[in-house]
């Protein structure tokens, strides 16, 4: 069962995309129905695949390294779960939210196309296949960012489009150089060859191109210029997907896979990612304080938290990588929750400016409570999950004797508490403006994902031990063990 579930994760959303486009010309309401069905199916399959053994799937029956392979190891299982869980909940949320936009059929088709791309990135075993699926997901996200065609959204979408295309071109350049040096694009085969040849300038250039491309896709400083414009301008479900999973599946996962499985954890790559993470955490935190637009504040906060994940991965020790992967899972959950909350608030009050809001706790109880839970999680209060993941990252940094990084991480976590307290004070507590005295709670199809994500925030903190054994420990083992990866694909001893 698991061997046929792997291509289905990519093929099912592709089939449902085209079915939505065909039937959507005649019947408008097919979009939500098929969308929820497809994301429910992929979520169920991703849960099944967690218990399956590590396997390799050969497309079309051709053996590697001649054919294209799909690889399922611990890291892929974790990323599949994160992507499909958030896609399922966001799809349920967008049934009611997208009623304000026209052309809803195209929204659901583009959303499922983005899901195809992300599933393909996580499962692919070839460098060029990684590039193609990155492009599919990125093209769908460029179109989704400018979905409501107002002037600000178009400007943000255009900036994102140009910078994202530049990054993809750099990734293709890196793949071309790797192909010239090793004669293959299969990741395991290239890893074998790279271990054998001497380091030369072309390899360093390829590493530079990869870091530029993937760091831009994940929003690390100094390549973050598109993120504070693109994430607020998108519709709220798209913002949750972009900030929750896209910057991680296309950026952090891809650079982890290339750095550890292809280049065997080169010190140079990890050092650069560590420094980028440090600068991102600091700059993202500092720039969030002065923001008035709630979604722009959440976007800068995303830059800061991805800096934490990059620091954890850049440190290279098993404790650091496990903590970074746990923070990846947590950040997807609580940042998705916060963006969905901001969408609900915007839908009822009609504004994103925090200075005009206040006292929403009285009129919108579910949204306010889930905002409080999300803010407490991201600030790092026990017993929510953010506390454990941030603590583990700081402990890993101390154990690796990186005292500057640990100090900055602690300082930024204080700043995070500061601006999230400001968010809660301004929008939830305090007097309610007269113009909002009649607003109601959001419909039930939007409150179900909010409640579910809040429960996951709490449960991931309390049941951390169980999650660690099931998800994060195998993922860390899969990241660090390049020999097992090569032998799994090529069938010979690494």
């Amino acid at each position: 069962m698991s061997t046929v579930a792997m291509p289905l994760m990519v093929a099912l959303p592709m089939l449902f995309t085209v079915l939505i486009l065909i039937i959507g010309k005649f019947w408008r309401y097919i979009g939500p129905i098929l969308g929820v069905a497809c994301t429910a199916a992929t979520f169920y399959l991703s849960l099944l695949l967690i218990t399956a053994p590590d396997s390799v799937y050969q497309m079309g029956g051709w053996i590697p390294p001649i054919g294209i392979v799909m690889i399922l190891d611990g890291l892929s299982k974790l990323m599949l779960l994160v992507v499909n869980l958030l896609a399922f909940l966001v799809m349920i949320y967008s049934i009611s939210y997208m009623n304000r936009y026209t052309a809803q059929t195209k929204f659901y088709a583009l959303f499922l196309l983005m899901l195809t791309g992300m599933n393909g990135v996580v499962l692919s075993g070839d460098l060029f296949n990684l590039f193609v699926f990155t492009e599919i997901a990125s093209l769908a996200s460029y179109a989704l960012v400018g979905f409501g065609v107002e002037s600000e959204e178009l400007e943000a979408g255009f900036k994102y489009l140009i910078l994202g295309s530049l990054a993809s071109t750099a990734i293709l350049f890196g793949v071309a150089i790797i192909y010239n040096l090793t004669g293959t694009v299969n990741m395991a085969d290239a890893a074998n060859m790279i271990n054998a040849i001497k380091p030369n300038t072309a390899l360093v250039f390829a590493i530079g191109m990869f870091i530029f491309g993937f760091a831009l896709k994940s929003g690390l400083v100094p390549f973050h210029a598109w993120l504070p414009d693109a994430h607020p301008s998108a519709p709220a479900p798209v913002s949750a997907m972009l900030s929750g999973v896209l910057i991680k599946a296309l950026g952090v996962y891809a650079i982890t896979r290339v750095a550890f499985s292809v280049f065997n954890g080169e010190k140079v790559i990890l050092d650069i990612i560590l420094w980028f993470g440090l600068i991102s955490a600091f700059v993202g935190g500092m720039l969030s304080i002065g923001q008035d637009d709630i979604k722009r504040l959440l976007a800068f906060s995303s830059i800061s938290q991805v800096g934490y994940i990059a620091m954890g991965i850049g440190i290279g020790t098993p404790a650091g990588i496990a903590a970074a992967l746990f923070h990846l899972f947590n950040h997807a959950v609580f940042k998705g929750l916060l963006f969905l909350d901001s969408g609900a608030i915007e839908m009822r009050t009609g504004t994103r400016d925090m200075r005009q809001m206040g006292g929403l706790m009285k009129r919108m109880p579910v949204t306010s409570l889930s905002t409080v839970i999300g803010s407490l999680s991201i600030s790092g209060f026990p017993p929510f999950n953010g506390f454990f993941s941030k603590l583990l990252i700081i402990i890993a940094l101390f154990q690796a004797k990186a005292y500057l990084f640990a100090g900055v991480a602690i300082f930024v976590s204080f700043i995070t508490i500061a601006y999230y307290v400001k968010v809660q004070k301004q929008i939830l507590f305090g007097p309610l403006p007269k113009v909002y005295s009649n607003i109601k709670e959001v419909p039930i199809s939007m409150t179900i994902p909010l409640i579910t994500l809040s429960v996951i925030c709490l449960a991931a903190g309390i049941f951390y031990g169980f999650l660690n054994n099931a998800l994060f420990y195998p993922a860390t083992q899969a990241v660090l063990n390049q020999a097992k990866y090569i032998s799994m694909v090529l069938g010979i001893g690494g």
Partner: protein
Amino acid sequence: MTVFMLDMIIFGLGIYCLIAKRHLIKKIIGMVIIEYSVNLFLILLGYRMQGIAPILSPGQDIVEFAKKGVDPLPQALVLTSIVIGLGTLALMSAYTIKLYEKYKTFDMSEIRKLRG
């Protein structure tokens, strides 16, 4: 060797055009030049001196063909990359038309409502 240098000069021209020009359509042209220069780089990697095209005609010896043909794998990769470039170009053109409709200008320095 000189061919690769010329290709990198084209890449540099594309980057100059993307950064230095303010008109939106000139930026799109710069982006397209960058993408095509990377495609050209990928094809040039597969070249073999005095090679023949990798198309087998009936009655040709397979071993002789494998010794003299150029590498067909980069050509397949470039085909995919050209299609991706086409999709990106279509999306950029649609964005440009809608931007003109909303801002009434093609000048990038005047399209700056988002800041901070």
